[in-house]
């Protein structure tokens, strides 16, 4: 969790990530930022996020991103 927040901070600093229910609605994450995020996550957690996983439901907030990471690490 903390590591994820750190990564998000690197991509766009100065956002209270845990408090925001919808990062997409709040226009904090756009498609370019998502690509950066995916690259970092792949690296950090040794997973492979494919375009199938890049849907709004998975990137809505910190919890959903974490759930995605956990699901993919188990596979």
């Amino acid at each position, binding site marked *: 969790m903390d590591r994820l927040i750190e990564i998000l901070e690197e991509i766009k600093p100065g956002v209270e990530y845990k408090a925001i229910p919808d990062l997409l609605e709040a226009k904090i994450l*756009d498609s*370019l930022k998502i*690509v950066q995020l*995916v*690259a970092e996550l792949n690296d950090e957690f040794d997973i492979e996020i494919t*375009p*199938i996983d*890049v849907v709004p439901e998975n990137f809505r907030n910190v919890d959903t991103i974490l759930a995605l990471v956990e699901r993919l690490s188990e596979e």
Partner: protein
Amino acid sequence: MSYISYQFFLFLGAVLLGYTVTPSKYKWCVLLAGSAVFYWMNSRWLTVFLLCTTTAVYAAARMLDSMEEGFSLAKGHLEREEKKRLKALVAGQKRGVVICGLAVAFGLLLWLKYGAFFAGCWQHLPHHWRLPQPPVKTRMFLPLGISYYTLQAAGYLIDVSRGKCKACRNFAKLALFLTFFPQITEGPIGRYDRLSAPLFEGHPFEYERFTKGLQRIVFGLFKKLVIADRVNLFVSAVFEESGTAPGGILLLAGILYTLQIYAEFSGCMDLVIGCAELFGIPLDENFARPFFAKSVSEFWRRWHITLGAWFKDYVFYSISLSKPFMRLSKFVRRRGNDFLGAVLPAAMALFFTWLGTGFWHGAAWKYAAYGLYYYLIMLAGMLLEPLFAKVCGSLRIHRQGRAFSLFAMGRTALAVVGGMLLFRAESVSEWGTILAGIFGRFSLRETLASVLRYDMDRKDFAVIAVGVVILLVIGILQEKGIHVREAIARRPLPVRWALYLALVMAVIVFGAYGRGYEAVDFIYGQF
């Protein structure tokens, strides 16, 4: 049969009548029959190409489904390691099938729409390479909506391969999904997971929905006939003499051309979505007040939304999340350049996305330039973002404030006008001439003196101004989250009726049609 003709509305009425009286289970057949008639009347024997694409995509998707089924049956009794191996094998096979399916769909598109262009380029290659010369074809007639249904078919196939939706088992239903007659000429480009259910299940006739659909259709006609076709008088007159017209006039023509395309394309979308609404089928929205965008990338999320979304989902992510790109990003970051590492893969993926978007609009270099124009603006925005933030910080400019927002909207709109001028120009060099004209021959006095010389008189301008104000007011209301049609529906009957009748009568009286006006084809219908 154009959407703006009484024949189309008679046809629409007939299909709607058939749809209403047919039992629910078979209602979709009426839509398919209507779509087939519509397509055949427009394209005759070119319908064959549509059938080829449909068949290829249908077969490929079915194969993907059976592979996936086979895999899930087999994987039950396998060890972890073996399962992994089998999965990789199946994934490879699936990729092959998808590539074959896409090759047929895009092969037809490339051959029909871009064949002559590629042949032309081929001939310009150096002679000493001694390449065989292909026969140069003259421009063929294109099957109706090929650029739209190809993307829609490809999106469907990729969705099936990604497991986002199941393959369609009924060929006729898939054919309906690809040819649904309101959306076949200009989109919106539909997604199978959202569109299939409402398209195939039957909806009974509903009075409220019917009237709302009609309202939307009339509003579309208003945009097209009252605004776009009237502005067209001025725009075509000015671009006839783009080399000599005063700079201010050229700029005004650029702005009005942007208005024309917007009114026409979004008007057509209102008409299309309204038509589908009559049947109870919700289509994706294609416009969301694009001129309220504060940046060019936001503009493209509000303008021709389904095209942008298509390129984002199927091109941008496919490229930027692919293994080579991920490796590249890692490599650059290891070298210690974090910023570049973050931006580079996205920037490169965006390049292909925008090149594709540009070429999608037409087979000519100027369309490639059109795509790359937006690419460069976005890239500059991305690279300069840190600097810009710093400048704003030191000047204490509040970037969320209203004044800055207005400035950002104006800046974006100007960039878009520049792009639209390129879109309208015959070639990149003519675009250069026009831009040079705008900056080189700019004189306010001359502009004001000659503004009425270009086929539009004072009264025409007044109509356009009123039209723009109406669009603006509706846009502001919608930005505030107000559903205009619902808000009107809550008013007392006399107010409601007065508004509806005023809109219809405005279309009839102020529409630029009939004697003295040429019927203007939809610009986006030519792709």
